[in-house]
């Protein structure tokens, strides 16, 4: 994996020392909050409902064990013993105190990590397929391109005061696990006539105006990719609506000006700037690629795996749900679920982080990933090591066998932490997961993605959940709107609203009715919730959600 060069190291240390000075000046009163706020946001420090929150970038979701150990140390020393992994491959600390933040940033810099550009109107942490470099369906590892974009976008002088935030995601696989069509720019790496390049998708996004990204260029060769992306951001930087922050994202610019107009402007800008790159980007890419060579896969007997699979039903259930196909048939990609029913989606304790770091050292070629689905991935595990790994996971409360199932819910922090929230999302996720565990239906229901946001900003991706839940404030009470049929993969669809929302104590029974309706309606156990919805549309689900009440005229 990537390792900082002298330039990166010096830059990150410099930022820590600048921000330490800014914190000191804020505390001694020489900076007002108004002056300090943009500075702290540039360094990932928010002020939420109950405390500060520090958002730390995990570029393209990749961590080494020492970094994971350091995240655990920070959680223990400066926070309340845990961290929260988010849909944007970041980790958030919910309880840092302002005077401690410089020391936290210093500790992060010690392991080549930072919180720069995790907030504000800049190009944010670049995300990527969490199975990168391991997935059987991958043509290219997206991480070198993601790292190139990280280096280019970090402190890019033209892009520090964009009209709004800007999010980039990269995948190199046929199955999209990075939700690239819901990003300002989505990049799908591919090869055409023997030339490496990428499809560039623009103008996707969730939030209050969800939109599916559109193809800006079907194929940009690698040699043109960075200038092409720069041209795109540059066109939007000039054209984007700075008068209204709800219209400032590139999705609105594309919508208002039309894709063809944007494409023409990008091409014009590209022609201007391309000569100024002079190939240095390709040299850098070649250097970066050296850091992402595959681990040396071992060849050893597999019978420990086969034996455990045949004899241990708990191991088998976990293996059936939480393993994904690796490009090396003797290996597996392990999803470690941070979704044990009743716990907070995405939270990991310091002890859990340390045990994951050790597992990566012992069994997974020193690599960890954070998925946008708020789980931890061990991308390269030889199958013979799986039984031993599973035993350690069990001992650390990390062996929940639910990846991709109904209790593997994405939930944003909602009103339990977030100052912008209009309702809670975490307890709804906890309630649904616990309820379906009681019902023992989870395996039977099969693949079902529930995603919950605590306000219209859609940090919990509810628009692309097979079942999406949006928490709102309706006349001073929490109210939950349901959407159905959303999809965040290569066939991205924004879900459809079912109708009136549900009160806090009605939302879990409502989800239960929906799921029972699905079980009745599906053709067979192979037909997923999403496929059933696509076949039948809204009416039968709506009927289940809003049964006609005999005693009340008002069913809402």
């Amino acid at each position: 994996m990537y390792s900082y060069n002298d330039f990166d190291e010096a830059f990150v240390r410099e930022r820590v020392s600048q921000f330490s000075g800014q914190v000191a000046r804020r505390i001694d009163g020489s900076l007002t909050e108004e002056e300090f706020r943009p500075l702290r946001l540039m360094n990932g420090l928010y002020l939420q409902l109950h405390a500060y929150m520090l958002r730390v970038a995990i570029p393209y979701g990749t961590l080494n064990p020492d970094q994971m150990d350091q995240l655990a140390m920070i959680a223990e020393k400066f926070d309340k013993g845990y961290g929260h992994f988010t849909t944007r491959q970041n980790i958030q600390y919910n309880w840092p105190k302002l005077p401690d933040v410089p020391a936290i940033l210093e500790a992060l810099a010690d392991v080549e990590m930072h919180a720069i550009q995790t907030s504000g109107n800049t190009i944010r942490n670049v995300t990527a397929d969490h199975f990168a470099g391991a997935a059987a369906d991958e043509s290219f590892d997206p991480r070198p391109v993601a790292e190139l974009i990280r280096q280019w976008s970090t402190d890019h002088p033209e892009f520090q005061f964009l009209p709004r935030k800007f999010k980039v995601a990269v995948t190199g696989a046929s199955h999209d696990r990075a939700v690239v069509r819901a990003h300002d720019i989505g990049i799908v790496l591919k090869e055409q006539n023997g030339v490496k390049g990428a499809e560039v998708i623009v103008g996707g996004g969730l939030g209050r105006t969800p939109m599916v990204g559109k193809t800006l260029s079907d194929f940009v060769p690698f040699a043109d990719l960075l200038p092409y992306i720069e041209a795109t951001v540059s066109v939007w930087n000039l054209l984007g609506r700075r008068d209204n922050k709800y219209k400032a994202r590139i999705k609105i610019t594309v919508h208002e000006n039309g894709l063809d107009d944007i494409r023409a402007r990008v091409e014009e800008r590209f022609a201007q700037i391309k000569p100024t790159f002079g190939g240095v980007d390709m040299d850098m890419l070649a250097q970066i690629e050296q850091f992402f060579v595959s681990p040396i896969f071992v060849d050893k007997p597999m019978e420990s795996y086969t034996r455990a699979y045949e004899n241990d039903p708990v191991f088998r259930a976990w293996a059936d749900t939480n393993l994904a196909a690796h490009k090396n048939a003797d290996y597996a990609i392990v999803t470690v679920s941070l979704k044990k029913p009743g716990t907070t989606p995405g939270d990991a304790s310091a002890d859990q982080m340390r045990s994951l770091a050790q597992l990566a050292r012992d069994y997974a070629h020193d690599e960890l990933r954070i998925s946008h689905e708020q789980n931890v991935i061990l991308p390269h595990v030889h199958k013979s090591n799986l039984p031993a790994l599973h035993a350690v996971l069990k001992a650390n409360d990390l062996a929940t066998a639910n990846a991709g199932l109904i209790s593997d819910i994405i939930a944003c922090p909602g009103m339990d932490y977030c100052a912008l929230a209009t309702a809670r999302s975490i307890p709804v996720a906890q309630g649904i997961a616990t309820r379906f565990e009681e019902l023992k239906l989870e395996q039977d229901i099969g693949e079902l993605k529930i995603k919950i946001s605590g306000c219209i900003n859609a940090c919990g991706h509810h628009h692309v959940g097979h079942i999406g839940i949006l928490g709102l404030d309706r006349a001073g009470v929490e109210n939950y709107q349901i959407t159905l049929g959303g999809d965040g993969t290569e066939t991205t669809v924004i879900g459809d609203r079912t109708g009136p929302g549900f009160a806090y104590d009605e939302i879990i029974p409502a989800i239960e009715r929906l799921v029972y309706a699905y079980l009745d309606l599906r053709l067979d156990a192979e037909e997923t919730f999403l496929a059933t919805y696509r076949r039948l549309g809204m009416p039968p689900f709506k009927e289940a959600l809003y049964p006609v009440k005999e005693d009340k005229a008002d069913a809402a």
Partner: protein
Amino acid sequence: MARPFTPKIVTANALLEGDVIYLSASDTWVRALSDAALFDTQEVAEERLAFAAKDGFAVGAYLVDAVAGENGPEPTHFREDFRRTGPSNHNHGKQAEL
């Protein structure tokens, strides 16, 4: 007819700790909503907010509706109820500290 006035409290977050604070009757910042001062007119409330906003150790001061309860002011909206309590998924924040 004008809507009846709902009494107000002044609240903010502490600069160093980041936690929720309230303005008391003696112009100090207190950590429990029950110790907050409740202002009965818009005029007084705004005047106290202007005073509070000048304090560099309080961040983002604002006025919020509250009503008098048996043990001091009570929130009228669930957001303020969470702010005075802490998150519902962990026993952290005010509920653990006060």
